[in-house]
């Protein structure tokens, strides 16, 4: 694995319009179809919860729109590897859902209903843990998960396992002291941790230039003596391949920093209005590289699916989202008698 950043061809020629996924190495067509199916499901849920927020049914949501290729590309690599554990962050809706939640479980989480798989309605949607799908994110305190991920990797090593830990965070999180501490410890102990920065150049309204004085965050890896790579986070295959490589490296040699350049299509959360601070047209331009559209186009161009099949997948996803919404809407919130449960573990 090179110690310096690589840019994918995709990133290099991506001037927005008409970007197109390359065909993957080591992925079967069936993988791509599966990926697309999940991607479109996730997007459909993502759009729905935003609408449900406006209807007063979902108190808060952070959208993954624009980050999906990064989240699903890396997830796919982790799944192919088979022995990875994930510490995502609050924007990783696509990752968390695609990792194994049903649409109904997801909707229950967003509405704070009993049976929310992450926290049983105690936390913000999809905060907590989903151990069956090998995911922990106990809080949305920015950067707090990084040292925990490193510790998890340490615990795995102590237990004699070869698990690689993927920990996700935004460009804003790079400023936190704990991000430094986590990378430093991981480098000293050569722990199998992949630090994945989903860099969308904004922390709420704060632009990257107010967050760091360097061009590429991945450059910071060299100050810990491990490799840092920047990839086009709008491109599924780049994200998949870079993560696969990183997993191999991490398991044998220690940490890797993977910066994925993504776009935030929506406001920071449903509570935010990005028109206050984003230049006009920026989001529209970014949307021309929408990973959902891009992948659909590739599947059709490469004759893996027909337009009709693509439409059918989208229709099925929409239907699943509709059903999930109804189920969640009709289900009960946690009973107030449970307020005191599990303050302590038995």
């Amino acid at each position, binding site marked *: 694995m090179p110690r310096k950043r690589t840019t994918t061809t995709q990133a290099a020629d991506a001037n927005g319009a008409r970007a197109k996924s390359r065909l993957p190495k080591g992925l079967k067509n069936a993988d791509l179809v599966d990926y697309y199916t999940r991607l479109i499901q996730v997007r459909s849920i993502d759009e729905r919860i935003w609408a449900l927020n406006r209807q007063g049914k979902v*108190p*808060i949501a952070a959208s993954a729109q624009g980050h999906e290729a990064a989240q699903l590309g890396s997830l796919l690599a982790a799944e192919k590897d088979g022995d990875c554990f994930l510490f995502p962050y609050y924007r990783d809706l696509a990752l968390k859902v695609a990792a194994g939640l049903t649409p109904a479980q997801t909707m229950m989480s967003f509405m*704070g*209903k*009993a049976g929310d798989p992450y*926290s049983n*309605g*105690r*936390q*913000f949607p999809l*905060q907590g843990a989903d151990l069956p799908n090998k995911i922990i994110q106990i*809080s*949305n*305190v*920015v*950067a707090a998960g990084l040292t925990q991920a490193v510790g998890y990797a340490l615990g795995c090593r102590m237990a004699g396992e070869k698990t690689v830990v993927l920990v996700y965070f935004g460009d*804003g*999180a790079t*400023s*936190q*002291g*704990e991000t430094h501490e986590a990378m430093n410890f991981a480098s000293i102990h050569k722990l199998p941790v992949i630090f994945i920065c989903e860099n969308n150049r904004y*922390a*709420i*309204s*704060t632009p990257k230039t*107010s*967050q*760091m004085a360097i061009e590429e965050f991945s450059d910071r890896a060299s100050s810990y003596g491990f490799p840092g790579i920047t990839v086009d986070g709008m491109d599924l295959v780049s994200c998949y391949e870079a993560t696969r490589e990183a997993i191999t490296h991490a398991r044998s040699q220690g940490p890797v920093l993977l910066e994925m350049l993504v776009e935030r299509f929506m406001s920071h959360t449903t*509570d*935010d209005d990005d028109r*206050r*601070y984003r230049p006009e047209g920026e989001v529209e331009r970014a949307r021309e590289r929408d990973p959902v559209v891009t992948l659909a186009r590739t599947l059709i161009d490469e004759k893996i699916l027909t337009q009709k099949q693509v439409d059918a997948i989208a229709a099925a996803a929409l239907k699943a989202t509709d059903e999930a919404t109804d189920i969640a809407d009709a289900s009960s*919130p*946690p*009973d*107030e008698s*449970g*307020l*005191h449960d599990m*303050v302590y573990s038995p």
Partner: protein
Amino acid sequence: MAVKSVIEAVREAIREEMARDPKVFVMGEDVGIRGGVFLATQGLAEEFGNDRIIDAPLAEASIMGIALGAAFRGMRPIPEVQFSDFVWPSINQLIGEAARSCYGTHGALQVPMVIRMPYGGGIRGGLFHSQNVETHFFHTPGLKVVAPSTPYDAKGLLKSAIRDNNPVVFLEHKKTYRLVRGEVPDDEYTLPLGKADIKRTGSTITVVSYGLTLHYCLEAAEELASEGVDVEVVDLRTLTPLDTETILESVKKTGKLAVVHEDNITGGVGAEIAALAAGQAFEYLDGPVVRICGPDVPTMPFAQTLEDAYMPSPDKIADGLRKLAAY
């Protein structure tokens, strides 16, 4: 006088003090063009420039440490913590350093700094956007702690805090931001730190509270008034300095004390008020000191049902007061 919301009062206080003193500046996450996530600094970057309304990197420890360093140089920083839940990474600079800078240099250094933070729950914020953090500051000598309940108090106290030469933790209950509105004088005024305010006089029970729950206490007091029980409601306004005189006087008058807050009951501010009465007004107490407070549960679940179960409410308070009155 115009009717204003708490957030408007806060914004006005900052604006006036920045206009009055060029040493005053604001630093925090998204305080600039965004105006803060609650819009406390809306329009101020345009008015005062990005050198005095500084969009900080996402790193609370440095926001606090840098503000502290600037205060050493004689500036009057107002660092903003976006939600009180995120103050923890900065707490060494606050509890360990800022609070002790004056004492530890025998007065050579002053720390004229106001640490603003929205706190508290009842807004579906879940475990990490609802926290009550006041006790940690209340228990730290060297800090002053302010927790206003009304727009009038918020503005007058914030202006005093900014002019104070000590680190002041200024706690704004985020549910009051838009919910609580009230008259705010057009003319300049300040309110002294360290003075409680009797928001309702009464003779049979003293209720001590602050912030959001103060309003719930007033509602409960109304309810009890209709039942013939005359409740005095003391609004602490500042937790440090604590106005022990006003509290003790009221307790000596009524003989019964209840303390209400949203923060976890064990070891909370209410414990100190109770201990104060048990220690210095013992002869006057006609009944046990009652605490109607948040339960000992990590603050505070997201689901509406659980949040309601957690929060003190006018009904829960009225119940408690009723029992105390009957004692």
